[in-house]
């Protein structure tokens, strides 16, 4: 049973993108993954933007005040097993925005556990794609067995 689950989970990954105050650069690179050139769906990754059916949360941006509580609430809505990936420098360090006088409170790992990080400003679509593919089997493998 566990084997079947593992196989299914690594071939059908639902992704939710949440933008917590970015410059939009990473957003469009995630969007570009949808394009026929990279074709994210051929790997069984579906971008739905619906937290309730997501497995992977892509966090973009440097956590603005409005998101501080909502990011946590959003994370709690995602059913187990789940993993969060930080896309771009923004959620990792705050990128250029993490300066004196700005409103952001990076990094995102202050609020939710981040499983993987993709540095770059912005990272290339291929990098985003390969990270999702690499993290999914690792994070979801034998989830039920290990929880016991």
């Amino acid at each position: 049973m566990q084997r079947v689950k593992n196989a299914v989970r690594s071939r059908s990954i639902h992704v939710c993108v949440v933008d917590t105050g970015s410059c939009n650069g990473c957003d469009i690179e995630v969007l570009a993954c949808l394009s026929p050139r990279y074709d994210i769906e051929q790997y069984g990754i579906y971008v739905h933007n619906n937290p309730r059916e997501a497995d992977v949360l892509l966090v973009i941006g440097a956590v603005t005040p409005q998101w501080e509580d909502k990011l946590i609430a959003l994370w709690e809505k995602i059913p187990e097993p789940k993993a969060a990936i930080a896309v771009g420098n923004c959620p990792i360090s705050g990128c250029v925005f993490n300066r004196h006088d700005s409103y952001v409170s990076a990094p995102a790992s202050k609020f939710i556990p981040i499983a993987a990080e993709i540095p770059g400003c912005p990272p290339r679509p291929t990098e985003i794609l390969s990270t999702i593919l690499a993290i999914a089997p690792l994070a979801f493998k034998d989830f039920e067995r290990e929880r016991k």
Partner: protein
Amino acid sequence: MMDVLYEKDLRPLKLHILESPRHRRTIREIGRRLGVEPGWLIRWAMAHFDMQLLENLPARFEQGLAHQGADDPLASAIGAELFTVYLPFFTTEEMNAALEQARERLGRGEGMEAVVKDTLRVLGRGFA
């Protein structure tokens, strides 16, 4: 009971919008015209305008200044269109009533400048 997740106190966020140099300049200019302290104006605007309108305040103000009709000198001196259509600080009824009074006073032979100034003061009293 469900928690209201997205309803938050927006006032600090609105204040952040009004902090940029252009907004500050615009608010000061409007305040000068109406004879209102900028602080009161900001408070009123934050309570009545949504965030997008606040962001757009300077652009609308400029647009309103550029499009003031020349056919009615009194209305354009008071900024009848500017303060109702472009910047919805007053309703059209309020503005029309004020205009009516101002016209009356003009008819009695009072100076244009004083009338305009007084009318704006009276209108501006609503903010404090």
